[in-house]
């Protein structure tokens, strides 16, 4: 967490987050700070607790204990309104298989209260080249297509914090390009992005900082770029 004098107030501040998963203390004391416009790559072996950390930051699960856990200054996961500012992409597409891309995005637009949702969805679908398939059920899509729609779902409500849990797994090249352009755009509009992956090579050129999760602690990692 090298503080190279970044003037902007930290969007997300997490200190000494602890979480026991089953009987194993997955997160011993994870501390993390994200400022707008930053793209942090978090690596670590499978089962090191990357997904658990992402779920805690997304408000899905509660940490056992944490000194501070604030989003835009306010204390975090309790209030539902806070989750409005977070977009989540997980290696599972998190879409309803029986519904079509359009219906899925319509549903999420409604619960995230996205203004003039229809144009927003149409423009996003065009950008990921899914305009033609928008009314087929998601289960008929390929993995890459599902992940693209899932990315749209995550940025639909223009979140300030974008959490991505191993988004690159199983993607075709076109989807990888789309994902990278989305990340680049996110960085430009001053979003904070946290990407977890077990393959540190992925999206290296996008990253501003690298972290590694070892023995339940976050260690900053300098890569020779």
């Amino acid at each position, binding site marked *: 967490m090298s503080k190279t004098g970044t003037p902007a107030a930290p969007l997300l501040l997490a200190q000494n987050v602890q979480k*026991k*998963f*089953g009987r194993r203390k997955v997160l011993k004391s994870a501390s993390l700070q994200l400022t707008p416009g930053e793209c942090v790559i978090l690596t670590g072996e499978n089962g090191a607790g990357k997904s658990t950390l992402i779920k805690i930051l997304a408000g899905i699960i509660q940490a056992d204990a944490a000194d501070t856990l604030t989003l835009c200054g306010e204390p975090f996961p309790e209030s539902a309104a806070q989750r409005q500012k977070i977009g989540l992409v997980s290696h599972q597409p998190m879409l309803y298989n029986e519904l079509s891309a359009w219906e899925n995005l319509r549903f999420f637009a409604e619960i995230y209260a996205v203004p003039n949702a229809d144009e927003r969805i149409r423009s996003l679908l065009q950008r990921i080249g899914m305009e033609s398939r928008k009314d087929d059920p998601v289960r008929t899509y390929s993995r890459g297509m599902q992940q693209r729609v899932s990315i749209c779902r995550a940025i639909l409500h223009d979140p300030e914090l974008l959490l991505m849990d191993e988004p690159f797994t199983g993607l075709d090249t076109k989807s990888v390009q789309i994902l990278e352009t989305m990340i680049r755009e996110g960085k430009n509009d001053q979003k904070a992005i946290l990407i977890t992956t077990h393959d540190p090579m992925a999206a290296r050129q996008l990253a501003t900082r690298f972290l590694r999760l070892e023995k339940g602690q976050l260690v900053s990692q300098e890569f020779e770029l």
Partner: protein
Amino acid sequence: MQSLFPKKYLLLDIIATILILCAAAMVFLYAPTETNMGLVQKVFYFHVAYAWVGMLSFVVACAFSIVYLSKKDLRCDLASEAAVEIGLVFTLLAVGSGSIWARPIWNTWWTWDPRLTTTTIMALVYIGSMFLRKSIDDPNKRGRILSIYCIIGCASVPLTFFSIRGYRSIHPVVIGGASSGMNMTPEMLQTLIFSVIAFTAFYLALLAHRYTYAKVREDVEITKLELEDMDE
């Protein structure tokens, strides 16, 4: 710790055994034989004691569940697990002895009497919760889900009793009160109360042992994980 039983609770065990032996002595020697039921009436004392412990254990399990939900202390979940298991054993024995006692008096093995039906439904809830406990691995989730199911059971069983009480009832027996047409002489009442106390002590001893067993089993699981970590 090779002992047959954890030393800590030896005193409790001894007291419980003594009390039970006295209770048995009272039942067979002190309490008079009931006139119109004959000797089988003596089953009544232990039957009520077992049924009482079954119900008490259900309430104890529910109490531990509430404490677990508020304090998230895994030990309460283990205690609740112990209480449920012991409660089930006592309830089944109570129902069994109840039907044996009922056989000569109403010459049916089973009566749809509200109290008996509710106790059996309580046993079903016990068994259900034990199945639930076995099929969840993560201790935190298991504790949370089991506590809630235990509280639901604790709410539902008395409701069952009220809803079926208006339904059909042969013997309006209230726990410890006058039994169906059986006049309770003072000696009988004393024997009854004494055996209820004796079995409550026995229950506490069993609960302590079963809880210790659950605690040691949990420690074994945790050290298993530590050993795994050391291998890396």
